[in-house]
Each structure stands twice: as C-alpha cells, then as structure tokens.
C-alpha cells in the first residue's frame, strides 16, 4: 500500500528528528542557507564577516525587511497583502513631491504617509471582513488603485528629498548603522507583539478562523488591525526607500510584493497561517538581498541572480512543505 502525495506519511529515524527540530524553529532552514551563503562569500572575498558588511547589507535589504514584516503579520493571519506594492509606490511619490527641506515638514509628511499606509491597510481589512471578499483580490485591486494614483501624481520617477534625509542609510550609532538599529527594533517589536493579545489573536485567527470566531473574536477588528499594520510597515518601507533612492517612483513597489512573500516563506512562515517567526522572515529577506553579492563573488553573470533566488525559494519551501505535512500527519 503505497502513498498518495496528499497523504505521505512522516519520515522515520533521522528524518523524524529533523522534522521535530524544524517544527520548533521553522526558520532553521533559512538560517542554514544564510550561513552557507556567508561561508561561501567569506572564502571568496574579504571583509564579509565585518560590521561594515552587516551595515551595508542591512541598508540594501531594509526596504524588503520592512515590507516583509507587514506581510508576515498578514500571512500569520492566513491572508496575503498584494497592496503593499501600491502603498510603497505611493509612499515614495508622496514623499518625493511633498517633503520640504526642513525636518518639520519631513516629519509631518512622514507621519501622514504612515497614517495613510495604516488607513489604506485598514480599509483593505474592512472590505475583506464586511464584504466577505478574498484578500488576494481585494489587495490586488488596492494595489492597482494605489499604483494608479501614484502614476497620476508622478508619471515617471522624479521628485526629490532633502539631502540630509538620504544620509540615514549610513549614519551610525555605536558602530551600527541606522538600518541595523531598525532591524534590531523589528526583532524587539516582534517578540513584544506576539505576546500581546492582538498578536495572539491574529495568529490564532490564522490558525483556525472558525475556532477564533467561536471564541468571540471579531473578524472585522482583527482584519483591520492585521492589514492596517501591513500597510503601516509598507509605508515605513516607502519612507526608508526614499532615503536610499532619493526619488519617488510610481512603479517601484511592484518589485517588493512577491519578494516579501518569498522572504517569509523562506523564513518558515506557513502560507496557511498560524505559524511562523518574524526572525525567519528577516533572515529570508537578508538572503534574498545578498544573493546578488554571492553571484558577484562567484564571478558569474549577474543574470543568474533571479535563477538562484528562485531555486532557493523552491528548496526552502519544499523542505518546509515536507515537514509541515509530517507535522500534520503526526497531529492526527
């Protein structure tokens, strides 16, 4: 009696131990991949294991990390947020067209953009709950709308931000760059968030929506909070992006949507909801960011970068898919 794919039984022996480990720390695969990449790079080039490298890499990857943080919360809820592409684009456009040169103006507009991000996300959450629409479609439509608005305001890349704003990426404090501090902040945020009632409720609702409803959870509130947070982080990503590019770009957001999902999946977040650790996502985002460096170090054409990304994504998801199946089989 062989197996059907949908019913493959758990693996035994060494495999079973591996499965148990992965179940407890789904981001182990990501960590492993990261270590391998760093190891290869450090053999091929110098200066890889330095603080400076960390600062630089984090600076390039922070936009994705911020976007992926919001996406992780949504994925934990069991949904998906495609609109972050539009929010990021519109965020950069608004920043580049409205930032004055003084801190007050920049500060006020930054807050406004963050508020917009949260509001847009909250609106998504509202539509999803009240109209009972699928997150995929609602956020797809929202992406289109926000990208459209961004394009109407700024048909091509343009606008500008104050010079001092762009220095954030390499400002340092105690040897660590601004982006690294933000990264640490994200990790702290995560460990706080997931212990709060809201964090627990979001995870629970993603784990089993029906059970959550039976337990008295208000789907409207959960969805508004979930997608609102995602929008907020997308807006933050937009603001950070402008410190890197110095311009507004109506189409740039699209480059972050699917990678934000990929980073989370590589990091062990389950697409079904309810399981996962943001640290995994951050590692995943880090991996996606430094693949380009790896390809460069291997002296291979940079065209291989997407191929490598795709393959890593597949490997990571295959591993976590197999272990998820085993875990599910165990639980029956």
């Amino acid at each position: 009696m062989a197996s059907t794919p949908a019913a493959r039984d758990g693996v035994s022996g060494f495999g079973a131990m591996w499965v148990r480990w992965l179940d407890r720390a789904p981001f182990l695969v990501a960590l492993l991949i990261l270590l391998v990449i760093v190891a290869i790079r450090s053999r091929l080039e110098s200066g890889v294991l330095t603080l400076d490298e960390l600062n630089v890499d984090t600076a390039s990857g922070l936009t994705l990390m911020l976007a992926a943080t919001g996406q992780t919360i949504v994925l934990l809820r069991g949904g998906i947020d495609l609109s972050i592409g539009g929010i990021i684009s519109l965020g950069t456009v608004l920043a580049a067209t409205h930032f004055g040169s003084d801190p007050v103006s920049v500060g006020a507009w930054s807050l406004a953009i963050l508020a917009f991000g949260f509001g847009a996300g909250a609106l998504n959450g509202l539509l999803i709950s009240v109209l009972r629409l699928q997150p995929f479609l609602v956020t797809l439509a929202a992406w289109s709308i926000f990208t459209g608005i961004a394009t109407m305001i700024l048909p091509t890349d343009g606008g500008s931000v104050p010079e001092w704003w762009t220095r954030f990426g390499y400002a340092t404090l105690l040897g660590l760059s601004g982006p690294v501090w933000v990264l640490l902040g994200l990790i702290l945020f995560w460990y706080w968030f997931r212990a709060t009632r809201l964090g627990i409720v979001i995870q629970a609702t993603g784990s089993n929506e029906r059970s959550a409803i039976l337990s008295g959870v208000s789907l409207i509130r959960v969805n508004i909070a979930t997608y609102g947070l995602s929008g907020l982080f997308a807006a933050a990503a937009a603001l950070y992006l402008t410190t890197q590019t110095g311009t507004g770009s109506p189409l740039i957001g699209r480059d972050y949507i699917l990678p934000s999902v990929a980073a989370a999946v590589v990091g062990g977040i389950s697409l079904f909801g309810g399981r996962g650790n943001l640290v995994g996502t951050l590692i995943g985002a880090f991996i996606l960011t430094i693949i380009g460096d790896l390809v460069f170090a291997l002296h291979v054409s940079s065209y291989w970068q997407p191929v490598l990304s795709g393959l890593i994504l597949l490997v990571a998801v295959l591993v976590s898919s197999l272990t998820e199946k085993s875990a599910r089989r165990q639980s029956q």
Partner: protein
Amino acid sequence: MELLEVSGLSKRFGGVVALSEASFSARAGEVHALLGENGAGKSTFIQILAGALHPDEGRIALSGAEYRPTNPDAARDRGIVTVFQELSSIPDLTVEGNIWFRREPRTLLGMRDKREIRRRTEALFQRYAFPTLNPGQELRRLGLAERQVVEIAKGLAQDPRIFILDEATSALAARETEWLLDLTRRLAAEGRLVVFISHRMGEVRAVADRLTIFRGGRTVAAHNASEVSDDEIVTQMIGRRLERLYPERLPYATERVALEVRGLSSGARLSDVSFQLREGEVLGVGGLQGHGQRELFQALFGVSRAEGESLLWGKPASIASPRDALIGRDGIALVPEDRRGQGLLLGKSVRENLTLSVIRRISSRGVLRRESEAALVKEMIDFLRIKVSSPEQQTDTLSGGNQQKVIFGKMLLTEARILLLYDPTRGVDVGTKSEIFQLMRDLAAKGYAILFYSSDLPELVNVADRVMVMRQGRIAATLAGDQISEDAILRAALFEEAA
C-alpha cells in the same frame, strides 16, 4: 427560585420555525439534561442562551433578573458558558494558550504572563481532576478526545454559573467520559447549573437530576429523571413509538471472505492487524478513541500508507489511493469520519455530490451523460429517502442526517460491496440513526461486507455480528455472539488480559 427560567421563547429563520414558545426551567446545583432529536430546537435554544442568536419573542430570567445578551461576550459576563459540539480548538496554540485565549493574564506592556498562565492552568487541572494533559503541548498534536477535554477546560476557566455542555461526550472515549460525568456532578455540587445535552441515554441516566424534552421547536415535557422511563423519553422525543432503534439482527454472514487483512501496519499507530471480514457480515470495531481505528480505516481505503497484505474477495490488492479502492463491485468504499471536510462538497448540489465517485460511469469517452446521471441520482434519493426539495439543492443546506445519507449514496453508487463506515451515526438524529442501522443490515442481507467503527458502545453491541476491539494499534480481542457486551468491549479496550 429557579436559576434559569425561560418562557415563551420563539425564533424563526425565514419561513422555518426553530423554536415555538419553548420553556425551560432549571435550578442551581443540578444537572439538567436537554433532550431532543436534531432539528428539535436544542441548538437554537443553546445559541440564544449563549448570546449568539436573538429570540423573536420570549423571556429569559437568571435568578429572576432579565437576561438578554447582545452577544456571546455578554453571556459569558453573566456566567453562562457553553461548550459547543463544534470545537473551537486553535491548533497552533498550546493547551494553556487555548484555555486562556482572549483572557490571558498580562504583565507590563500588555504581554502575556507565562508563569501566571501556567499556575492557573495547573490549578484548574488539579481542582477538577483533569485527565493528564501537558499544558505546553501544541494543540495540533492532540487527538480529538484530548481537544474536547481542553475545550471543557476552556469553559471551566471562565468560572461559569451555568455550564452548558452540547454533546460534549461525542468525541470522548470511555475513560474521559467517566471523568466528564463525574465533573458534571462535582460542578452541580459546587452550586452551579449544568445543562447537559447528549444523545446517549446511558450518560443522561448517569448524571441527570431533571430532564427537559424538545420536539419540533416546542417543549413537550419536563421530568425528574427518576420519574420517567427510557421508553417514555424516546417516545416523547420522536413523537411516536419507535419500534426499535436497532433492527433485528439476522445472521447473513456466509463463508466467503470479502476482505482479508494480514499484518497491516501503518506508522506508529497501527501494528500488525490481521482479520477477515465475511460476505454478509457486519463487523464492528471498538476500543478507546485514538487506538488505531482511524488509521485502520484510512489504510484500508488507501488514504494513508501502510505495509501488509490485503485481499479483496480472495484476490491480492494493492490500494495506494481511494481511486484504487473504488473499483466497482469488488472494491472498498468508505463513509469517512468528517462529513464536511472529507465527505461532501458543501457548495455543490446533491446531484453533483452523489455522482462524484462514479463520473466514469455516467460519461462515455469523457463526455458526461446527463440522463444517466439523473437516473442514478433519482434512484439513490428514493432508495435512501434523502429529504431534498430537488437534486439541485446544495448540500450545505441539508441536516446532518441527510448529509450523511448523501455520502452513503455516493459510496453505494460505486457498487463496492465492502463498506467501511467510520462512526456513521455521529451527530445524526435518532430517526436517521435507526434508518442507517436498518440500511446496514439490509445491505448485509444482500451480501455486502461491512466494517464499522463506532464510539458508542450500545451501537456496537446491538448492530454488529462480531466486534474487534482495538488497543494500542492492535486487535486486543474479537468478540462474537454472546461474548459481545459493553462490559466485555470496555474491558478488552482497557486491560492487558483480553482474550
């Protein structure tokens, strides 16, 4: 004074009357059973008490004070806690995470207080002598019975004045059921009111002080438990004398072996199972839940991987998927455990569901033949007396009993003469249960071979020709004829020394 006093409660859904001037009266310190068939109005009543529905008319009083909850949280605030049959388990949270969900004690910054949570959980477990549970265990690793226990713990953690248990024992095995019945008496002794809904007369008899019977949305009777007989209860529940719940058990088994299994093993939960199922026989499978019964059925049907041999009608068979099992007259069919998740396409019509397994039969060269389909559908609806307005009716609008009939029909259409039935009468009303038992014996008479698992001991005792009791993934004992009794089954399920 009565703790809970309900009068004139009515509720309609569109044209359907769910409750009509229902009444209910219960005291603190008692265990009060609520009986009635599915569709009698019990769940509507419970949902109103729990604040999930609002009545159209009527009055509810708690210790004399008016009670009109706007939502479930309001009900809980007044001390009314309901443990529904449908579990609210959250698989990725731990046992204690589930128990204290949404009411976790918190420390600074709103973070949950892990130490306090653990302390309260252990105190709760201690106080009510809970079966052993690891508070830090993720719920997804637990079986159905344990999840039900967690659900009960979750209810108790809310310190209820009125504790409503809706079919709480349906998922439990014998040992946990004993504990739960004990628990209800203990809670009543603490001065609470326990409202106990169950289809199992034995349990009701064991704990109920008083009982109320609903039928057709109305309250037809309320008795002190000691003053009424089982027969009277059943009569009042279904409104007519039920000749017998269980059909006459004539011996139909022949010598021919329909299904033979040798050394069947699957994972950790099923080890070296061997048995023979004969033509015309109804073979029951018993034992505590989680001892390999599910794995056995899934292995036989090809849903999970297993080692060992199986022979269908004498011929060796290799069943790697349900598709391999459903091969027509010589095949095996399964009526699965989970009606909604494994048995029916809820958004589709009765017709589409009935013919789902015989699509090849109703099509020629890949093209569907509507007339063949319509004919088969009509035949099965008539044969099983499925109550539908038309074959196009969506299955999610059917009652549990009718849904089960559709699944039966789907499997019967495959013409497979070996039937695996996994707890076929769970959550099904008395009337349909009786029909299903009769169907099983009728099919046996026609030469079908039936293997059926039931968590209900009286069912096994009264319907099966033989009973295989499973323990720890093996067959602990096989009982036949006079050997079959609830006692014998339980003993074999629990103790080492079985025959």
